[in-house]
């Protein structure tokens, strides 16, 4: 089997894994479909933006939850934002944690919030690593003379 076929097989398996495990959903597929010749780096660009935002939001939420008196409204608005942006790139797991997170904010449950924040952080790191691996595979395919297949 030549290199290109090997790589294609790898990326197909890896993508299937990402979808199966709920790391990404259909919205991520759509993101990839939006990428074209005029904007070959679109997905990477959006994903990077997302992780930048993610980091900021997580830091802000951590600070807010450390306060003597927690401003749950503030935390909730951060969660809301993260939920929105994670849903628009198809980061399904993160989105789901945000849903649970919101209920803790509404219930003014500090411990619940802290747990969710840790989960969010964990999911962000995992997704970041996974997508970096995916992009690397894509780069290798392009370098080997192929083009990036649309993920299903």
């Amino acid at each position, binding site marked *: 089997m030549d290199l290109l076929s090997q790589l294609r097989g790898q990326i197909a398996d890896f993508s299937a894994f990402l979808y199966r495990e709920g790391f990404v959903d259909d919205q991520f597929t759509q*993101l990839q479909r939006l990428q074209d010749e005029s904007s070959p780096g679109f997905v990477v660009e*959006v994903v990077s*933006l997302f992780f930048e*935002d993610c980091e900021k939001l997580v830091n802000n939420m951590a600070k807010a939850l450390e306060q003597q008196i927690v401003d749950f409204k503030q935390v909730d608005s951060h969660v809301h934002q993260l939920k929105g*942006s994670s*849903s628009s790139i198809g980061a399904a797991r993160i989105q789901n944690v945000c849903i649970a997170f919101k209920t803790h904010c509404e219930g003014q449950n500090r411990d619940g919030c802290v747990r969710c924040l840790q989960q969010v952080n964990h999911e962000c790191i995992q997704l970041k690593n996974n997508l970096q691996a995916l992009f690397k595979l894509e780069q290798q395919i392009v370098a080997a003379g192929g083009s*990036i297949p649309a993920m299903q």
Partner: protein
Amino acid sequence: MQMMQGNIWISLNPLGFAQGMTLVLWFQIRPSYGRAIFAPGTSSEQPNSNSQFRGLSVILADDDHVNRTVTKKLLEKLGCEVTAVSSGFECLSALSSAENSFMLVVLDLQMPEMDGFEVATRIRKFRSCNWPLIIAVTASAEDNVWERCLQMGMNGVIRKPVLLQAMEDELRRVLQRAGEGL
């Protein structure tokens, strides 16, 4: 105007006096033979008819950077010319600026400071006609969101996360109704 298949009509009230200029833009919905960009080996069942909305100038207002980037790209994929802003204030000032003539506003309802409802209300206030068209984008799953939007003078609603097909369908629907209802 003619290049865009448009016409300018002067609407007459029953007594024959010119009621005012009504700008009528008819968008011919052509069969989609648009340049679909296929990477070899991909199965692309989506219509990708980016010739359909070519020339449609849109203001996109969303405070979230990621959402703004994705939705902008989506609209551009459909052929629109998009100006993206991050707040209701920026949206209103872009609209009131004389050089700009936007046909459509795509408006996130849940923005801080000034939400989409307020933006829409203000747009309809200083423009007495039903132009630009307004499509609201909302994460809310409540049934009465659509009604509220209609009451505020909006023309369409899309649920988040925004899908290409959903945006295309809603754009087409809104434009068709705008063309008919005059």
